[in-house]
């Protein structure tokens, strides 16, 4: 894990002081609310329906136990005892008092965390594969590059007042578990040339209103030139992106309107005149940062574990959790464990302070002091010995954190929606909860297998509904909360946007409709097909029919 040195620590401290100054100027009237707003947003402070909200960055989703304990402490001391993990691997606190914010930011700084650039029209928290450094299909751990990008983008003099927010995701191999094609820039490590890493670059992806799948702009950008290349992209965007219409300001609209060829030519033109010798990272710095992410001191194991095998045989509940929530690890004898934050009927992504303490303890004791936040709003213990999995599971079970549903139908992504958010059309949380209760039967969920169901309370798509295999979008129909359903979206390397299947439904009709779609899949699937495979084979129509069975589908 990255550790702050004197430079990082100083910067974060100074940022807290700067924010204090800004709050004081807002209080004295020297700053108007209009002027203060972008400044507070760049420190993660939102105004929601009922209170301020603070969004804390978990850079590239990686935390240690000390940081997790501090997040628990903040939830307990300044909030109502819980926090909400988001699809951007941030954690949100919904109830802090404005006057507590500087103290919270100081608390965060003491464990090398911050809320810098978690909002605002700047380069946001960089996200990555939750299994980085543990997955067996990875060419290179992407996290050193995420850290390099975190530093480079922090308080960037040229790119802090962009037309709109800018999100970057990085993956370390061909299998996309970070939805890079839905980001403004997606980076995929494709290989090495000597010491240098090679990146494939996507640009112009984005969700929200007018969603787009990113387009390939370059196939082999060198690591040493990565910052220069990104500078060229951002410069072209900063100068040419639209500023007259907030809904058309993202880079996706610029890329779409120019066409990818013309945009690439523009980027190349900027790249050529860049003084890139300044932006070349010294190799020693790359190595210094890589050293922080070196694999932990794994034991040499033969890959089998008596304790694990006995537990699987002895306890069907453990066996089920293992089937659904445990992922293969590159190191023999180890595995990664998904901690589902989607308990039956609970709020997706919410976690209490005591649960955070439990996760911190488990990370410290069993996972080389590491825990990750996944964009699916779950947590992951990346490096657990098979021998230890039964103990980990028992502790999770006792804390209400052992729901065996990772990637299954009740592992729903949902935004805060109308329960908190001032932009919402409709609530998403109760709909997610109703679905979770309806599909609670785990045997049924396992029969259906992996399926990604995503919900957003409005078109901003914080809940990734466009790329859910099944997406649910809250809409406002004459003051009533309604829900539009899409089928066939996908966030992975075959990224696609879901198709709207018909007119929107009232909230109580959503869960039954989704269940009918899943039942239809069980009827028509062929051997070995996952839900999304069947949709890709037959199209969305059969599912639309099932969804509107007994209902009027006319839009």
């Amino acid at each position, binding site marked *: 894990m990255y550790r702050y040195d004197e430079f990082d620590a100083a910067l974060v401290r100074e940022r807290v002081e700067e924010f204090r100054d800004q709050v004081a100027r807002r209080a004295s009237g020297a700053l108007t609310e209009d002027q203060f707003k972008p400044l507070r947003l760049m420190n993660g402070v939102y105004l929601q329906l009922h209170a301020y909200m603070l969004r804390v960055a978990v850079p590239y989703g990686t935390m240690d136990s000390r940081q997790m304990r501090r997040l628990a402490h903040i939830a307990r001391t300044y909030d109502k005892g819980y926090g909400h993990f988001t699809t951007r691997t941030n954690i949100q606190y919904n109830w802090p008092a404005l006057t507590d914010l500087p103290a919270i930011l100081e608390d965060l700084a003491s464990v090398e965390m911050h809320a810098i650039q978690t909002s605002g029209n700047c380069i946001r928290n960089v996200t990555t594969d939750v299994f980085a450094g543990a997955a067996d299909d990875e060419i290179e751990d992407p996290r050193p590059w995420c850290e390099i990008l975190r*530093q480079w983008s922090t308080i960037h003099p040229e790119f802090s007042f962009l037309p709109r927010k800018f999100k970057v995701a990085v993956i370390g191999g061909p299998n996309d578990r970070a939805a890079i094609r839905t980001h403004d820039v997606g980076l995929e490590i494709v290989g090495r040339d000597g010491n240098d890493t090679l990146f494939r670059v996507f640009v112009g992806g984005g969700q929200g209103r007018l969603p787009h799948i990113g387009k390939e702009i370059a196939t082999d950008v060198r690591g040493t030139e990565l910052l220069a290349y990104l500078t060229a992209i951002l410069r072209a965007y900063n100068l040419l992106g639209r500023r007259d219409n907030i809904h058309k300001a993202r880079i996706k609209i610029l890329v779409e309107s120019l066409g990818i060829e013309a945009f690439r030519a523009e980027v190349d033109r900027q790249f050529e005149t860049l003084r890139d010798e300044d932006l070349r990272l010294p190799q020693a710095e790359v190595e210094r940062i890589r050293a922080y992410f070196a694999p932990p001191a794994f034991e040499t194991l033969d890959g089998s574990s008596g304790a694990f095998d006995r537990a699987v045989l002895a306890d069907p509940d453990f066996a089920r959790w293992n089937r659904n929530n445990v992922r293969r690890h590159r190191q023999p004898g180890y595995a990664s464990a998904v901690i589902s934050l989607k308990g039956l009927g609970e709020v997706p992504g919410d976690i209490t302070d005591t649960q955070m303490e439990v996760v911190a303890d488990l990370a410290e004791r069993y996972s080389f002091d590491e825990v990750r936040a996944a964009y699916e709003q779950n947590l992951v213990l990346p490096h657990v010995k098979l021998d230890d999995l039964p103990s980990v599971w028992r502790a999770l079970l006792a804390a209400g954190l052992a729901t065996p549903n990772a990637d299954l139908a009740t592992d729903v992504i949902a935004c805060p929606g109308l329960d908190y958010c001032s932009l919402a059309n409709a609530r998403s949380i109760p709909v997610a909860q109703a679905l979770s209760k309806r599909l609670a039967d785990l045997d049924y969920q396992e029969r259906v297998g992996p399926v990604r169901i995503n919900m957003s309370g409005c078109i901003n798509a914080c809940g990734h509904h466009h790329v859910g295999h099944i997406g649910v979008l809250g809409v406002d129909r004459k003051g009533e909360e309604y829900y539009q359903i899409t089928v066939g979206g996908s966030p992975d390397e075959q990224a696609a946007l879901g198709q709207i299947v018909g007119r929107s439904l009232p909230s109580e009709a959503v869960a039954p409709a989704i269940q009918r779609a899943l039942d239809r899949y069980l009827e028509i699937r062929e051997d070995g097909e996952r839900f999304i495979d069947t949709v890709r084979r037959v199209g969305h129509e059969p599912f639309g029919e099932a969804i509107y069975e007994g209902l009027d589908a006319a839009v």
Partner: protein
Amino acid sequence: MRLFEHGEIGPQTRRLTASTPLDQVEAAASDGAPIMIEFEAFRDGRGFSLATILRERGFSGSLIATGDLLPDQARHLMRSGFDAVQLRPGDDPAAWRRMLEAFSVVYQPAFDAAVPAWTSRGKSLRRPSNAPPIDEGTTLGRRAAELNAALRDADPLTVLRTVLDPRQGLRVAALSSFGAEAAVLLDLLARAGPSTPVIFLETGQHFLQTLSYRTTLSKRLGLTDVRIVVPDAEERADLDPREDLWRTDPDACCDLRKVRPLARAAAGFDALITGRKRYQSGTRARLRVIEALDGKLRINPLANWSADRIATYRAERDLPGHPLADQGYASIGCWPCTRPIEDGEDSRAGRWSGVDKVECGIHLGRRRAAA
């Protein structure tokens, strides 16, 4: 960067808005006359790119910013290549100056002279020339021997800085009992890396004075990651239900309350820093600065320091002492197993006095502890 209110603009200054297309801005700047860029809205950051590009392409004339700008953008302007800002009536120059100086660190190169952190690091983190090369192929023992050869005569701060340098690739934690002599090691550690994890074994049998000393000392030194490690509750209920194992079998008690918890707490680390010194007792007289033990490095930065040197350092740095030290306790552990020492005894004679025990097990290898 110069701040001025109005006037002072020469007639040859060309005034452009920040929404002017790049090629027109470049044309206007082609003869080197001063350029003034007007920001129509502070949210519109095009001017930062225009200035950066002009400077990168060699424009050396005066570049002035004006319009709807916030003091909070002062550094962005300066770093993008503006050399002056024309404030508007009512703007507060004091706020502008404060914001210009708000940060001492920058993370990226820009037009101004500020050196990005990655360059400064290259300088400040240069490895001591006598440090061994990093070679992941070496076994732990060889690694220890090499480090020891390089550091055996080094001062404690150099030892700490070297092992904490990320290029060594080590995950390092410190071990402290927050006892009578803890302050010196912890102060050095706070200077070398205040966020280094410090493991405190909470045996449940500490003096209350130790617990409060732990709190005040960590705070005073700015240690940000003191980890309190407790025995496993089940094991404790099993092996020591009446909490008096120390009476009958101190080895088993230490094993339960120190050795096993430490093994768990240290699992994620490659190296542990301890405060042991050669002068402390006979068993420690051959202590080396770097050793290999149970698959980890043990770093003993104070191995070479004499009791006098320790005392001088403590006085120089004005470090608070353990509340019990004044009462004659020279080495402080759990209350049942610690008594004050008499003059002339070695400093650990007060520990487990009356039984044939000198170390609690955490500093012995696994096999020796079991034997």
